[in-house]
């Protein structure tokens, strides 16, 4: 028998490991994905698109876009502020802050939804005050946005903190000694240094904002055409045995996932390849 490197497994071990991986991927990822599209197209392309003619579905899509449209920018601002503070300043409670940022990932989304009901609900802490001022948070759009912002909070910050910590402050100090103002330093030096990580965080945050079910489900109240997001609408359609429409709407989320994966892979490739951009900026002569 020929010698093999110490770390090389026998052929049958490799085959077995690979087979197990492939089997799991097929069973738990590929099959459901294929199922979504086959079920959606079961009665033909016409029935597929008919599903989107339902005003309730259209309203759900609009609400999801609105929610993501608010949650993602809020996240970018929070993420930049948090990452900047953690990476560039020293202050008491810094490690507590970094731990707290991860809280939404550790907590079940249903619990985060319930917390908002407890605070803003009719019988919650702020309920009477809100009612007196004719403001509705729970079972209305503000509640959905709040819940979404909460569950997506860590995404941008988590991408930026390690990167900005690693980069330190020399580039910024350098810009300052060259006469740049704080804003010029941010736009011309800091932002370009973190742009790919920021985009990566935005993509992940957006996918989560659009796909969130648990937290939103608790605060939404499921008012058809008013407080249903896309994932909630899928559930309603499914529960009404309207399978084609349910899977047609679900296929939107599936496509969002595929686009997110593609964008994520592209950005990962950009972040690991040489920092020098191949597009040489024009010589300003």
């Amino acid at each position, binding site marked *: 028998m020929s010698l093999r490197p110490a770390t090389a497994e026998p052929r049958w071990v490799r085959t077995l490991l690979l087979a197990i991986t492939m089997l799991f991927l097929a069973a738990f990822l590929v099959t459901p994905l294929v199922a979504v599209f086959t079920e959606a197209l079961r009665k033909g392309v016409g029935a597929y698109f008919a599903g989107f003619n339902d005003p309730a579905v259209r309203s759900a899509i609009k609400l999801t876009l609105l929610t993501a449209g608010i949650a993602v920018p809020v996240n970018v601002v929070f993420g930049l502020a948090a990452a900047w503070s953690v990476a560039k300043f020293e202050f008491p409670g810094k490690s507590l802050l970094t731990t707290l940022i991860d809280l939404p990932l550790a907590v079940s989304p249903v619990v985060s939804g319930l917390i908002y009901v407890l605070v803003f609900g009719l019988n919650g802490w702020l309920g009477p005050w809100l009612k007196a001022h004719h403001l509705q948070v729970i079972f209305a759009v503000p509640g959905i946005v709040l819940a979404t912002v909460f569950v997506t909070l860590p995404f941008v910050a988590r991408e930026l903190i390690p990167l900005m910590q690693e980069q330190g402050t*020399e580039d910024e100090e350098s810009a300052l000694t060259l006469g740049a103002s704080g804003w010029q330093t941010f736009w011309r030096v800091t932002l370009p240094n973190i742009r790919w990580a920021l985009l990566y965080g935005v993509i992940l945050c957006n996918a989560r904002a659009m796909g969130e079910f648990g937290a939103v489900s608790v605060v939404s109240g499921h008012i058809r055409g008013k407080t249903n997001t896309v994932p909630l609408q899928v559930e309603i359609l499914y529960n009404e045995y309207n399978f084609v429409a349910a899977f047609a709407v679900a296929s939107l989320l599936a496509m969002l996932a595929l686009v997110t994966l593609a964008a994520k892979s592209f950005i990962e490739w950009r972040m690991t390849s040489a920092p020098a951009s191949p597009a040489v900026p024009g010589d300003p002569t």
Partner: protein
Amino acid sequence: MSITVENISKSYGAFQALRGVSLDIPDSQITALLGPSGSGKTTLLRIIAGLEKPDEGSGPIRFHHEDVAGRRVQERRVGFVFQHYALFKHMSVFENVAFGLRVRPKHERPANEVIDRKVHDLLKLVQLDGMAHRFPSQLSGGQRQRVALARALAVEPRVLLLDEPFGALDARVRKQLRAWIRRLHDEIAITTIFVTHDQDEALEVADRVVVMNEGRVEQAGAPEEVFHDPATEFVMNFLGHVNVFDGRIEDGKVTFASVQIEHPAALETAAGPARVFIRPHELSLHLLPRSDSLPATVTGIHAAGPAVRLTLAADGEHTFSADISQDVYRALKVSVGAKFWVLPKDLRVFPGSAPDAGRL
């Protein structure tokens, strides 16, 4: 532009980085801030630049006669070069150098043609013309350092501040860049301060060396002055290899390791313990005894170099080194175990016994 700082202190929590430093930096010269890590040299440089604020109660920082202590870093017009270059990775060499001109307010910003000419002139000055379109990642360490220098010079700084400018380079490039910086300075004559922990670098490049230790200035002077006439034991120890003997001052003479030598320092000082410092090249070997030479046995020879370094032992307890020329080494047929009479040609005496580990 001369720089004067007075009574500058800086602490980070319990750690005191600078303890009331006062210093004059002469106009149009290269000054080296030399010291071990933690001596406060980089902190002082950053305070001069405006990147750090000195503690309350610190004195003024004057550029020529103007107190800039209250000025922001952008207003001080200093060129600062970082140890790791801090080039903007997403910008070409050209854009890096042009940065300081492009961020000026609109009414002060030069026209594009002026920027273009200026950047190319600077790249020529640092011998990087033709590299304008490269990105920092496509340059070697020495080239990056020169881009950083050109970028700092582009804003026509009043002073040039370099933080360990050669620290991240390999030994050969470091030597070349050292000589080159010296020539460049002779050309543009801008007041320059650089921080280093390498005494050879400081002695070779600088017109003036400021030796720092534990947040204080130990000595400031010309390279020859600090090397040949060190003011303190620390300076003596830090600037090159030195033999230290514990001795005594008595009757105007210094006694150590079985010899008694007359020394001017001994005449001015009351009797008591003393520390004797002799550099290896200040010792010579002889076959015959003299009243002021000490007998020693060769215990080690390191002959690969311009001089031969011998390790010697005197009365079985004192071990020290002596540097002799290759000619003398061959003429005396030095070998391990051979006995010689060692004569100190020069020595320095500091009264007092061995210093405590940490002085306050």
